[in-house]
């Protein structure tokens, strides 16, 4: 087990390093640089550009820039964002809670409602409910998140006026307002983006759960449970569902990076102050330090999630340890 764990950890570290190097190189190879964007509405003289290029060390050869970046990774100094003028670590730290909240809420919805609906579908296989849920979930899956977000914001926020259309909190709410007020405020702002993100991702969870449960329901021990006279509810939830959770772990591992990367489009449409929208605008403006900071975090999370999933598999299924 220990040898297996060490091997997987080394593999994960190598994958992470390759991902980071690739991102660094690809970002530099992409046309356009951070300073050219500054000229979009206010042109600058070549002298001014040369001064800025030297200031941000963009005039250095790429290997020197990379060496500086690697040093920064080990000293927790990822540099200063060119667009924002703030340390990258500060910016990421300030945006991380919002992203974790949105991603966490979406994953929670996904793995509660999604699993429950998947079970309902499996239990009523071939029924109208099963067919209707399949069509609805696939429709949600096929819907572009930004479009769905705009429609929900228009309908629920503007036409009905039930929920806030954008942002994470009401800026007019005093900072010293009682905590229930602040909590309700954030929760109200969270509903639409979390719902949008869940609707477009829930189909996967439902399908996985439905198919996994159908497989288990065919096994002999389920027939034995029924023959013992157990109520159907107990058969499904106590015996079948627990065994059908195993494949869903893989899916959970895949969704885990969503906690940090969030959804760029959903964050943009709802002006959610998260990391996804920050990274997207950084990529568009070629804000190298910020892009690399966000990429480092995302790559780290993907690799860690993958490692944790494997570990969970190994703990749950002894056969994995020896493979």
């Amino acid at each position: 087990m220990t040898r297996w764990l060490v091997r997987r950890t080394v593999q994960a570290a190598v994958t992470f390093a390759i991902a980071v190097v690739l991102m660094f190189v690809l970002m530099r190879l992409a046309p356009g640089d951070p300073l050219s964007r500054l000229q979009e509405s206010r042109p600058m003289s070549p002298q001014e550009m040369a001064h800025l290029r030297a200031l941000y060390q963009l005039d250095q050869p790429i290997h020197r820039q990379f060496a500086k970046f690697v040093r920064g990774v080990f000293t927790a100094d990822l540099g200063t964002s060119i667009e924002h003028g703030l340390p990258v670590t500060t910016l990421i730290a300030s945006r991380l809670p919002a992203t974790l909240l949105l991603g966490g809420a979406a994953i929670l919805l996904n793995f509660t409602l999604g699993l429950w609906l998947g079970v309902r579908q499996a239990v009523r296989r071939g029924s109208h409910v099963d067919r209707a849920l399949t069509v609805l979930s696939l429709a949600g899956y096929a819907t572009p998140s930004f479009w769905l977000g705009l429609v929900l914001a228009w309908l629920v926020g503007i036409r009905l006026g039930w929920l806030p259309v954008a942002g994470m909190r009401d800026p007019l709410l005093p900072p010293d307002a009682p905590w229930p007020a602040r909590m309700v405020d954030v929760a109200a702002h969270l509903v639409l983006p979390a719902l949008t993100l869940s609707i477009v991702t829930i189909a996967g969870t439902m399908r996985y759960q439905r198919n996994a449960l159908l497989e288990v329901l065919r096994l002999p021990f389920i027939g034995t449970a029924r023959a013992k006279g157990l109520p159907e509810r107990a058969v499904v939830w106590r015996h079948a569902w627990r065994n059908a959770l195993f494949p869903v772990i893989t899916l959970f591992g895949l969704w885990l990076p969503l906690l940090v990367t969030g959804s760029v489009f959903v964050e943009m449409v709802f002006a959610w102050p998260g990391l996804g929208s920050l990274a997207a605008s950084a990529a568009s403006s070629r804000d190298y330090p910020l892009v690399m900071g966000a990429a480092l975090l995302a790559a780290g999370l993907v690799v860690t999630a993958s490692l944790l999933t494997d570990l969970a598999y190994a703990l749950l299924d002894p056969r994995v340890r020896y493979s």
Partner: protein
Amino acid sequence: MSWTARLVLAAALVGVSGVWPLLAHRESASIVIVTGQEATAPVPTLMEKSQNTLANQDVADQLFLRLADVGPGMVTAGDQGFVPMLARSWTRRDSLTLVFDLDPRARWHDGAPVTSRDVLFTMGRARDPAIAPRLANVTRRIASVEAEGEHRVVFRFREVYAEQFYDATFHTAIVPAHLLERLPPNAKAWTEFAARPVGSGPYHWVRRQQGEFIELAANEDFFLGAPAIKRVIVRVAVNADARLNLLLAGEADATENIPPPITNIDRVTESKHLRVVPVPSSNLGYLLFNQRDPAHPGQPHPILADRDVRRALILALDRPLLVRAVLGRYGDVPFGPVSSQLWIHHGAPTPAPQDQSTARRLLAGRGWVDRDQDGVRENRNNAPLAMNLLVTASSQQRQQMALMIQQQLREVGVKLDVIRVEPAVWAERRAAGDFDIDFSAATQDPSPSGLAFSWTCDGPGNAGHYCDRGADSLLFRAMASPTADRGLWHQFLRRVEEAAPAAFLYGQVYVFGVNRRFPEVIIRPVSSWGSLWRWPAPRS
């Protein structure tokens, strides 16, 4: 009572206790302005490099004051068209010396008086190329700034010119020396101050929620009169749809420049609680013709180096139609590179109307004839009259207009390939001269002197390589003139139009959306929200 029922009841109680203050606090005299960019360092003399943004400027205008502001006529020449701010009066000792008397009532937000020491400190930073290269460049004709007592400062200039006063007052507001002069001059040392700036303006800093909003509160001791709007929230929504949604849902009170398409303005107009406020902007859109060959920058462009061809392209365009189709009523066709905000815009000649028969004649006269009847003209060597048009993907308006331009030029036998690229790529290609025609847009300063940057032979921003020494001479004479003489400026504009270095397409009028509870709205083109402190109190 079941467990579920208890949970629902508890949630409802929490909800009610939380929601009540949410509704109650909306009663105050506040305004929520939604913008597309976050103000990260709204401090004069720090707004350099990537911090030179409108978002920073808009917030800085609430916190800090200039010595004087450009007046409603937007005339930047002479000493008369300005409004007193930190300086209550000014006199001229001679053609090179301006004397400002500071208003003794002016105070920093921490209570300290504003003195000549603050002006000297600020101008010292502004004129230092190592600290503020952009400011140092625009204030380069100021020879010295000296104090005469606590409340008098004397500006001396290197030469006689019309915009001395403008250069002394417009480019930077004044920052507090007593809080900053002990700090090292670099931006890093100023981070703490930038996180909680102390100014002398109508509003003082309250807090920042990173990535979400900035809150300002009225400076009740403001020496020019306490603002009626007591609380200002500058809220950030990068996405244009999100900005519009906030406005339509009543979660924001105002936004500048309602995003395209034009139907969004109709949506705001139809909303019962909103109204639109058109404001002339400094935004100018034009097709820049590259007069050098992009493949061989040392050589003239095989098509566009010819003035008659450039003129034919301009005459082939129905510019008023383009403006109407994309901007509606909110734009006009400029004469020369002049937005409607510049004072020299007034009285300028009328732009030439579309004349496709003349355009065809000019092209044929230069040897461009459709020899193979495929709808595209060719020259004697059978090279087609085909070019690319570079457009940034960040502007929906320019992309929309580019397609119409493509169609209009096809009518006279010109093939245009529209190349849509990311903003960073667009700017890079433009700066490198890698284009035939570039769909440019510029945000102009209120001063026409800025024209020298892009429209003179040696202008550092002359990306199209337009060069006419005669026009340069006219421009420099106009800039040096000690009076606000529109005649000289208009001569320069005529000369530019004759040389046709670009097709000047539109001067944009920005359309602000503002909640109707604000009975009177004062928006100045030079600073969108700079007059907020003069707005009357909103209706509850």
